[in-house]
């Protein structure tokens, strides 16, 4: 279990950008899209065996041809202004100790390549409506980065979200990497695209949030990106969400209180949906999750 490098890229003060699979696959889609659009080349991977169970074996005429694991791969890109390292992780370890171990390995690679700035990308679950443009929540690991973040477009700090007073938690590698980077005195910022709370269990990605993250990254790192393809996907996903909400609202067995809440969700265009009690939120999530499960069964 370690890092396997295919080659050692020669990079000038690179910035590292990391995305793992998580809610709405927001971070994974964002970083993988940036990696794809920049045509970054793979140069290494974290050996998966100790972190993940094999997801698929291929045995042909008795011979084990392939043992497939979720990949955690490094890519490098020589930009006109600066160089970049992308880390694309198809899955996060489920064991917290393994998560920490993986974060250490990522920082080892960052150290080796001379990365002094790391970005992670993920999702921030909130009461935004899916027809609104998601904002990007930014959490730095050092106080001196706050001024810089205030200059980012469409980006807010934790202190600007509701009555959080700058407090919160980031679960998984997106958060842990910030902590491990901090202990090594490496600057890191986590960028989280807003995802509607009622979609956090949806089986499909939420590209609108990924687009918001990419717009921020493109601006601050001066990497122009053509996001039309991702925008088309986002429109399709939104149309799908509308259909699901219509079907849910038409369901006979829906409690009246939830039906009212669904009306609000289908009558959007406000970024603030107003107060929702925890019980209401739980009920809506349960019903929506149920519907998504039925929907995904139909697809398969």
């Amino acid at each position, binding site marked *: 279990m370690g890092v396997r490098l295919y080659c050692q890229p020669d990079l000038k003060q690179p910035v590292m950008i990391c995305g793992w699979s998580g809610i709405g696959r927001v971070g994974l889609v964002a970083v993988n899209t940036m990696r794809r659009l920049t045509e970054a080349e793979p140069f290494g991977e974290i050996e998966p*065996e*100790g972190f993940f*169970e*094999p*997801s*698929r*074996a*291929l*045995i*042909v*005429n*008795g*011979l*084990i041809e392939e*043992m497939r694991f979720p990949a955690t791969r490094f890519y490098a890109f020589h930009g006109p202004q600066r160089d970049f390292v992308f880390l694309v992780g198809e899955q996060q370890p489920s064991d917290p100790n393994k998560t920490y171990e993986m974060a250490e390995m990522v920082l080892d690679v960052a150290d080796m390549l001379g990365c002094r700035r790391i970005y992670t990308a993920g999702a921030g679950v909130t009461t935004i409506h899916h027809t609104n443009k998601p904002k990007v929540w930014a959490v730095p690991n050092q106080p001196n980065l706050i001024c810089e973040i205030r200059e980012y477009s469409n980006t807010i700090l934790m202190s600007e979200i509701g009555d959080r007073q700058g407090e919160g938690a980031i679960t998984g590698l997106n958060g842990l990497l910030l902590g491990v980077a901090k202990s090594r005195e490496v600057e890191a910022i986590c960028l989280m695209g807003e995802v509607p709370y009622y979609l956090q269990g949806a089986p499909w990605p939420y590209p609108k949030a990924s687009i918001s993250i990419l717009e921020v990254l493109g601006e601050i790192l001066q990497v122009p990106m053509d996001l039309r393809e991702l925008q088309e996907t986002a429109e399709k996903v939104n149309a799908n969400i509308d259909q699901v909400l219509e079907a849910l609202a038409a369901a006979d067995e829906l409690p009246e209180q939830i039906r009212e809440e669904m009306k609000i969700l289908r009558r959007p265009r406000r970024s603030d949906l107003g107060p929702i009690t925890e019980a209401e939120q739980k009920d809506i999530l349960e019903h929506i999750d149920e519907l998504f499960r039925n929907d995904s069964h139909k697809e398969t």
Partner: protein
Amino acid sequence: MSSLETIPIRRPEIFRFTSQPRLEKPSLIVGWMKDVGDVSRGVADFLAHAAGGRSFCQIEPTDFFAVGGVTVESNIATFPQSRFFHDDHSKLLLLRSDEPQSRRYEFLSAVLDLAECFKVESVYTVNGIASMIPHTFDRRVFGVFNSVEVQRKLKWHLPIGLRWQGTPHMSTYLLWLAGRRGLQAAGLWLEVPFYLSDRQDAQAIRSAVLLLSRILGWHYETEELDQRVKEQEEMLANLRQEDIEIDARIQRLEQGESLESHEQVELIEAIRGAFRRHG
């Protein structure tokens, strides 16, 4: 000759030794406790008994199993076990184990660490695979190999290769990890009539033992296995006489016909009920 006195183990705290045998280039056979037709356990039990029935080492369960209590099966409290046995005459190192519930990679790596310490030459796993054959047919054996070399070496014994795409079985994962270390490994997959999947198929177990004996040059007495096969055949023949539905469906299998899903389920239930009635 290899022994643990001379070779370090990476994580010695995982193992609890009661003795340290000396073995000369043994083969490692791995048998799991729960399996289609109980083939894996049946073979492991036979070999452990032939090896004297005393294990020399076990893997501590705490890292790999839930040990907050016990499960009760057939009125008996069970507890996960992973025990190693050896048989000097047969150059055999045997692992008879429950499948780990967590940290499978670490568990299998520990097994292979021990195998390397004993300079194991080859690794074999044995499993059952449910098939649409009747119990009156010979059990075919499908091979899985971790390299072309071992496939070539065993082609006379295991001419039919398994085809599979999906979540890997623990045995396949072990073979693959062994391959990463340059250890030759093969898996034997014995056909088990689907209606015997949830009980011990004595014929599949005997076929596996005989095949392993041919591959590894063993000379085991198999009278006890032969007797169990005979008893199983008699029991199933009696069931066919008692129940014309069971007989008709098995006859169709013997004629190469397949059964509808509901017919398969009904046959399984009928056989299960009949075995229960006959103890």
